[in-house]
């Protein structure tokens, strides 16, 4: 019988760059065993990091990833569903393929990882799932109809799953970052960003550590009574 590792195991999606890369490094430094994934290879200088090259909406590959994790570690403590894509465009100019691509990654990918993670977490009757939302949803940002609606779906998924897996000792929450200077917002015009920041109670860019602060709270063993919540950064109200 496999002896589960003493260190907590966390899965983080989209770890090749941006927030995912930061969070992978952050939780490695905190002593976690980190399993990351992205479509392209990624490197972390740690023997506690394991990378899987996959598209988060490729169900067979996602199932294989979790099968390997189950055999290797026999436990999963936390999942951070960070992988996501955005596209800023007027909805009249948004091709159907873009809509499918965004929903596949942001909604289907989040769903598949939640499903496989919950199967593994329920064995130990413990788990923490953190999904990624965005302030574009409550702020109803023009030009982000598809991105914002995909994240609205993630919010609903988060809140319904929270109820469905509560009896397994699993919590499901979401963090909604404000803009962070990453690839995700590289193509957004400066004026748009300024007007977005002006709608926040605290009108600055978010930093990676602001996100980690919320994920720390959600994945803490002490947060067993916190579930179905969406926390937006910067004072944006739901």
């Amino acid at each position, binding site marked *: 019988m496999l002896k589960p590792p003493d260190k907590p195991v966390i899965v983080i999606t989209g770890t090749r760059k941006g927030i995912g890369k930061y969070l992978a490094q952050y939780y490695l430094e905190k002593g976690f065993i980190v399993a990351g994934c992205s479509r392209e290879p990624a490197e972390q200088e740690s023997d506690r990091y394991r990378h899987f090259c996959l598209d988060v909406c490729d169900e*067979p590959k996602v*199932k*294989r990833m979790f*099968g390997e994790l*189950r055999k290797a570690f026999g436990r999963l403590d936390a999942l951070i569903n960070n992988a996501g894509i955005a596209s800023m465009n007027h909805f009249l100019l948004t091709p159907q393929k873009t809509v499918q691509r965004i929903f596949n990654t942001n909604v289907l990918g989040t769903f598949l990882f939640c499903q496989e993670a919950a*199967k593994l977490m*329920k064995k130990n009757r413990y788990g923490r799932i953190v999904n990624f939302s965005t302030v574009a949803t409550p702020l109803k940002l023009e030009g982000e109809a598809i991105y914002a609606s995909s994240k609205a779906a993630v919010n609903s998924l988060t809140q319904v799953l929270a109820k469905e897996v509560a*009896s397994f000792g699993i919590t499901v929450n979401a963090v909604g970052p404000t803009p962070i200077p990453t690839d995700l917002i590289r193509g957004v015009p400066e004026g748009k960003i300024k007007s977005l920041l002006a709608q926040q109670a605290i009108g600055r860019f978010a930093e990676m550590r602001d996100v980690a602060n919320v994920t720390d709270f959600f994945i803490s063993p002490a947060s067993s009574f916190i579930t179905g919540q969406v926390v937006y950064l910067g004072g944006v109200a739901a």
Partner: protein
Amino acid sequence: MIERKRILEMVCEAVDEMNETLPHAERLEKSEAAPLFGRDGRLDSLGLVNLVVAVEEKVRDAFSTEVSLTDERAMSHRNSPFRSLGAMTDYILHAMESSYAQAA
């Protein structure tokens, strides 16, 4: 050739594991015909989730193949494949044979 008997053993192993966590009065009967889920069944929907996940895992480990017992066909069957252990065993066998036939 996949043996039905082997699949049934795996389903029964999953039932044994579930029974360990249940009070005596709620334990599942290990008979092929005993009602499992649905009318007269002992399992509620959460119990079914637990059993299905455990069986999928055993099949994956034993045959190194992914079998999803909750696909649309299973959910829309007029006669639920989860109505009894025997029906569930037949459904898994059928799902695996279809999966192998497609791969061939």
